């Protein structure tokens, strides 16, 4: 008998996953080796926009160890294959064909145009150098506003425009609120700002890789992907491989952060080449390739207008976005900014709201999901403008927020976007954060330093955020024209010996599902944590799933596990009643035991599983199995929230920013495993802080990515980050039986504006009301010297208008 008495949920279980990861017994895709496996290397364009006049592969074909060389035409002679975009946000959205390998034009620096197949990876890469390509320069389109200019050259001539789509939400039209134009016309106070979300690189630590083995009845594909199930279906639709002839495995995957959500041309290339040659092939990219070829994130210009009464009550919010898609549309790229559409209003009770986003093509690496996807951008916009409004009103920024946020007794609350927030307690999280932070003490110190003209000034930044995650109710995704549902699948297999296999469609890549799902199942079935094995990431064992992104694993996939467990218990109850010779209603199930009420007579779940396996004595018509499936479609998103407070010290003589204190109190509802949650928050904070202070993908005027290595792209190391103080309040979600909310993206979404607000708070006394991210010492120093740096100056001036380059910043 292995009944658990103490609940597993809430326990700080150490992770099951660690054993193989700390000993190097790992199965990264690049670790795999198959008999006769050949290696691929991709020739990538050094130019951002050029016509391919000719590609001469003859010398490469005779290079040592080379089996074959293929151009785009060789792999797709009819030029009909296009990489999928699953989120056509408007019916008239412009969508260029993204080829597996470019054959007519290259549209960003890093786009592939030929592939060498060789015995070894070194031989394949050597042969790349003997491929001779003649290019003819085309005008390079860089910078969102440049791309939209009347006389701009076009990224894709055939589309006739650089505009991908215009997506609009208006609360007056939707009937969810009043008119923003009326609010602006009648406003007592109006604040307008332009903010910039710089372009970022997801920078998962394991570069992308793919192995395809075409030698069995199902073609098997291993890929460093977040989305094995989506990849399987999309590969089938894209290449016409019958879906039942394809098996996709995501083995150990080294991080994703949205960056591995794509369906890659390189993956399609591997499938095509492996089938052509009838041999297993491997593609593994270098970091330098990842930086230019894997999708980037963010890259928006945000024009925000907020209106309020003199007393601080907000009356309207108008958001106009320009979003850079890069040269093509990623799997969900055009929808990423749209995920922010419902979040700019955040926790505040705006009566009127208008959102419009124009997506634009440029000759850059495409953008798509990166941790938070649309919601960090929205949170940044609203939390920055709330601080600006507070200054305009002469109000304490936290008081302004409190005046306008949804009070805990007002839940469930339907927002101006029409979303219903099920639960929350912003007062409780904020009170706890203020106490941990010593908010009043730091404000006092800040005043003292100002008065004494200390060269190191103190700033305090606030971010009271919420997000919608747990993507998502299928009908909502359908209403947004998203190309899939939002359900998740789970299966529980009760083995003869009482052990349990749990199959989940949520494919983990570092999050700890094996541990958390084991805890859930141990509680549900009353079995030991150690007796549960979680299977995922292989479409042969886990045939059904929609994978891991948007903080959906626990709140959708975890709940599917609960639903499957409920079915196991229901089946077991019938057999238990039979064996115990009682009515089903007389049975009580607790801690893995069916007990006849009021007696000692009992059977545990392992005994029932064995009885089902033996099948010698089952009630008539009962099948000999407890195994159960569930596919769960949530009724609502989950809405985690929290209060993040950041204190920075700004050296006014050098512009250097040092985080003095970072406190966050997140409310993610009930918690399955507190150490996993804390780890997610830490990592999320690191990425959000990195956006505020360090990271930027910078292009030069010819469209070459200048920050194309980890020497140039400033991924923070241990010395660049502070010690975080994290805590929680627990307001259970009412939308699912565990009361859980997502946590994977929370830290990233919340932290960026907290840091920037803090720095601006420190230097506002010098006439500064914005500094573009990342807040490098140069930019901060420049702002202090010259007063306000205009974040709106993106597309003007020498060297400006280059997407993520601006005249004042760039690679500085």
């Amino acid at each position: 008998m292995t009944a658990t008495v103490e609940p597993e949920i809430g326990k700080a279980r150490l992770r099951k996953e660690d054993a193989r990861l700390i000993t190097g017994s790992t199965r990264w895709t690049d670790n795999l080796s198959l008999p006769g496996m050949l290696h691929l290397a991709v020739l990538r364009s050094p130019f951002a926009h050029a016509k391919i006049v000719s590609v001469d592969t003859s010398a490469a074909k005779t290079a040592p160890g080379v089996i074959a060389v293929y151009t785009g035409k060789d792999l797709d002679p009819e030029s009909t294959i296009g990489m999928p975009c699953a989120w056509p946000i408007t019916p008239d959205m412009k969508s260029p064909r993204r080829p597996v390998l470019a054959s007519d034009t290259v549209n960003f620096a890093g786009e592939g145009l030929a592939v060498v197949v060789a015995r070894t990876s070194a031989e394949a890469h050597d042969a790349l150098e003997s491929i001779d390509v003649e290019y003819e320069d085309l005008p390079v389109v860089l910078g969102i506003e440049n791309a939209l200019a009347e006389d701009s050259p076009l990224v894709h001539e055939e589309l006739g425009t650089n505009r991908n789509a215009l997506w609009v939400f208006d609360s007056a039209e939707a009937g969810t609120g009043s008119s923003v134009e009326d609010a602006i016309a009648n406003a007592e106070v109006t604040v307008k700002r332009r903010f910039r979300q710089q372009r970022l690189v997801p920078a998962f630590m394991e570069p992308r890789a793919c192995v395809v083995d075409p030698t069995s009845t199902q073609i098997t594909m291993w890929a460093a992907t977040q989305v094995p199930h989506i990849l399987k279906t999309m590969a089938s639709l894209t290449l016409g491989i019958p879906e039942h002839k394809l098996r996709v495995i995501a083995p150990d995957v080294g991080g994703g952060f949205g960056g591995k959500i794509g369906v890659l041309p390189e993956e399609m290339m591997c499938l095509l080449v492996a089938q052509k040659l009838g041999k297993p092939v491997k593609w593994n990219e270098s970091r330098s390739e990842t930086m230019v070829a894997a999708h980037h994130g963010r890259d928006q210009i945000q024009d925000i207008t907020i209106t309020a009464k003199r007393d601080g009550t907000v009356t309207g919010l108008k958001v106009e976005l320009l979003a850079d898609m890069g040269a093509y549309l990623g799997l969900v790229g055009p929808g990423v900014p749209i995920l922010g559409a419902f979040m700019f209003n955040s926790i505040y009770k705006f009566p009127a709201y208008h959102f419009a986003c124009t997506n634009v093509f440029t000759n850059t690496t495409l953008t798509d999901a990166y941790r938070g996807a649309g919601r960090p951008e929205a949170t940044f916009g609203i939390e920055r403008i709330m601080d600006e409004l507070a200054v305009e009103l002469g109000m304490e920024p936290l008081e302004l927020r409190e005046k306008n946020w949804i009070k805990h007794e007002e839940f469930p609350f339907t927002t101006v976007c029409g979303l219903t927030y099920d639960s929350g307690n912003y007062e409780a999280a904020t009170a706890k954060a203020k106490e941990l932070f010593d908010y009043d003490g730091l404000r006092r110190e800040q005043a003292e330093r100002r008065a004494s003209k200390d060269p190191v000034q103190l700033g305090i930044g606030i971010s009271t955020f919420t997000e919608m995650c747990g993507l998502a109710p299928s009908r909502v995704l359908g209403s947004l024209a998203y190309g899939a549902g939002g359900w998740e699948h789970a299966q529980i297999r009760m083995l003869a010996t009482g052990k349990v296999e749990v199959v989940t469609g949520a494919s983990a890549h570092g999050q700890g599902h094996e541990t958390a799902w084991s805890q859930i199942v141990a509680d549900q079935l009353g079995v030991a944590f150690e007796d549960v094995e979680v299977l995922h990431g292989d479409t042969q064992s886990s045939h059904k799933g929609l994978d891991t992104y948007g903080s959906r694993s626990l709140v959708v996939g975890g709940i599917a596990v609960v639903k499957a467990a409920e079915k196991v218990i229901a089946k077991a109850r019938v057999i238990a009643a039979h064996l115990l010779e009682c009515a089903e209603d007389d049975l009580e199930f607790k801690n893995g035991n069916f007990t006849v009420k009021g007696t000692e007579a009992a059977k545990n779940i392992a005994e029932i599983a064995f009885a089902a396996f033996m099948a010698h004595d089952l009630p008539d018509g009962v099948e000999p199995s407890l195994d159960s499936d569930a596919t769960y479609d949530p009724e609502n998103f989950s809405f985690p929230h929290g209060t993040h407070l950041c204190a920075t010290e700004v050296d006014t003589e050098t512009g250097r920013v040092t985080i003095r204190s970072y406190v966050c109190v997140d409310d993610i509802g009930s918690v399955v495993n507190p150490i996993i949650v804390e780890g997610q928050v830490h990592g999320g904070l690191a990425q959000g802080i990195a956006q505020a202070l360090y990271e930027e993908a910078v292009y030069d005027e010819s469209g070459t990515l200048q920050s194309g290595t980890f020497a140039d792209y400033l991924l923070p190391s241990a010395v660049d980050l502070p010690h975080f103080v994290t805590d929680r309040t627990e307001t259970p979600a009412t939308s699912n039986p565990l009361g859980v909310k997502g946590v994977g993206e929370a830290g990233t979404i919340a932290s960026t504006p907290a840091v920037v607000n803090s720095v601006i708070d420190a230097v506002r006394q010098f006439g500064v009301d914005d500094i573009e991210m990342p807040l490098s010492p140069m930019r901060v120093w420049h702002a202090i010297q010259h007063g306000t740096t205009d974040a709106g100056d993106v597309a003007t001036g020498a060297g400006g208008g280059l997407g993520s380059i601006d005249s004042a910043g760039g690679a500085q």
Partner: protein
Amino acid sequence: MRITVNVDGTSYSDEVEPRTLLVHHLREKLGKVGTVVGCDTSNCGACTVHLDGQSVKSCSVLAVQADGCEVTTVEGLARDGELHPVQKAFHDNHALQCGFCTPGMIMQSIDLLADNPDPDEKAVREGLEGNLCRCTGYQNIVKAVRDAAHQMRPGAGPEAERLGSHVGGGGE
């Protein structure tokens, strides 16, 4: 040219191309795929191993430079099925998520503790500056290294004695 390298206690003699990096030799020739490649500019540290007891980024060493040397990788740390205290501390402190940086992070941490058996938070952060992690925000890595230092301190008992057999194990 022919080189002989002792890796994790086994001596390997192989023909290698002069340009072959140690990390590629380990992964492709010797099957030591526990050591991974995360970048191509020596910034990430995922490929860190010990070369004659000192940590090196194995992408920055030619295989021929390791001729006649002893290499310890993350796969050679556990003895008789028992984890090295640093490995155990990474597990105990949730110092890894996806685990891709972990082999290098553990190897560098052991080297750091050999140099400084009782590092404070700042010393750990500075000692790991050449190893990048995208998942953890480093806080639990710092905690793990300091926890390992505590477990390995002089007089920590049989556990600490056992460390004498580890390359770069530190403690004494």
